[in-house]
């Protein structure tokens, strides 16, 4: 009887940890909802770390081909999982989701193209994401947003 009680108390602890995680997940996902304005787009591997403003274009030979450059855009994360990206030049929509332990932002475009970003920092005012080229390494392109 005692062993069964021990077994079930372990199971209960496991269930509690899952419950706690699921409850907080909703909160974590909601922290991204809202409009974010892109401030900076920079190469982290570049030693000079020159920030690229909205209309600057710099050719970098180390840049992977699949990187989509987002310039001076407003990202509107909606609670239903839709992301509206808008700028003077671009208007597009994608599906957004957080994966892993809320550390990976996945954008899926209607044409099947996907972008993965590592969520480096998020608080009430700012959002910093890194383009993710590999799961274990931080991406070279860093995007900084501020909440509107």
């Amino acid at each position, binding site marked *: 009887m005692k062993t069964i009680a021990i*077994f079930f108390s372990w199971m209960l602890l496991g269930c509690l940890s*899952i419950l706690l*995680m699921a409850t907080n997940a909703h909160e974590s996902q909601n922290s991204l909802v809202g409009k974010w304005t892109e401030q900076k787009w920079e190469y982290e591997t570049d030693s000079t770390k020159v920030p690229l403003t909205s209309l600057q274009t710099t050719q970098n030979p180390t840049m992977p081909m699949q990187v989509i450059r987002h310039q001076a855009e407003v990202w509107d994360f909606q609670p239903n999982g839709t992301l509206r990206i808008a700028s003077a030049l671009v208007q597009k929509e994608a599906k957004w989701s957080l994966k892993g332990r*809320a550390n990976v932002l996945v954008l899926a475009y209607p044409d099947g193209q996907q972008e993965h970003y590592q969520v480096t920092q998020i608080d009430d005012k700012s959002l910093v994401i890194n383009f993710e080229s590999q799961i274990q390494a931080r991406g070279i392109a860093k995007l900084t947003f501020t909440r509107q």
Partner: protein
Amino acid sequence: MLRKLNINRTPTDNLQLGVITAFVSGMVNIASLLLFFAFSSNVTGHFAILAAEIVQGDWYQMSVVFSWIFLFMIGSFTANFIVIRLNKINTYLAHALPLVIEIICLLGVGIYGDLFYAETLAETELLMSIMLFSMGLQNGLTASISNFSIKTTHLTGITTDLGILFSMLMHPDFKHNKEIKIRCQLLLSIMIAYVTGGILSGLCYYQLYFKLFYVVAVLLSGVIAYDLYRVRITKFIHKRQLQTSLNTVHPSRSSSWRNWSIKAKKSLTLPTLRDDSRLLTQD
């Protein structure tokens, strides 16, 4: 694979179990990486992340990683709990039950992902938790029944052991040691199976997505079915041998084997009852 425990296990038993479960782990690990961007079978990395999150003070992510590690441990706890509790009743059942739970968990992930998954964070973390629990179950089971000689969900220990064993094989004293060679063969097979499972999972991912878990469930069911078949065959052979030996000892009773066995049982039980009653009267 599942019928024997610890010292009764042959290298072939360990090899069969090790290869199939390592293949499954490789598949599940890569599937979780591609679907949820997190590893489900190796916990060492999660410990490193936990430490990093503590340093950064990100309590939410820290709690998530801690829960995953904890669930992996609960999986291992459950597997060993079942093995040591049920082993005296039925060895096969004790060893098959954790695998049955693992199949249910992974099938659950597959079915939910295939039909209901809306890509919310809560779902992702819940499904990851179930996968980590099932990997803990598998690792606990294989380690428990093989006397800790095989662990199939991660390769850190195996790589270390292989390095040690290879260095031993370079030494003239151990060069022809058969046990070391068998152990090397076992560990290499586990390593290859894990990597092969991962590659296959990566190749099939874009066609199957969550249906990958159905393949995993079929593989694990194969292990259970194979051993059930072997248990039944062994029982049948044992029964036939017993019958043949009894027929040679008591040829007159060969036609009524069942009657004879009932009588034999009665003759064995009665004196025991009498002894018990004698003991009671003495008290």
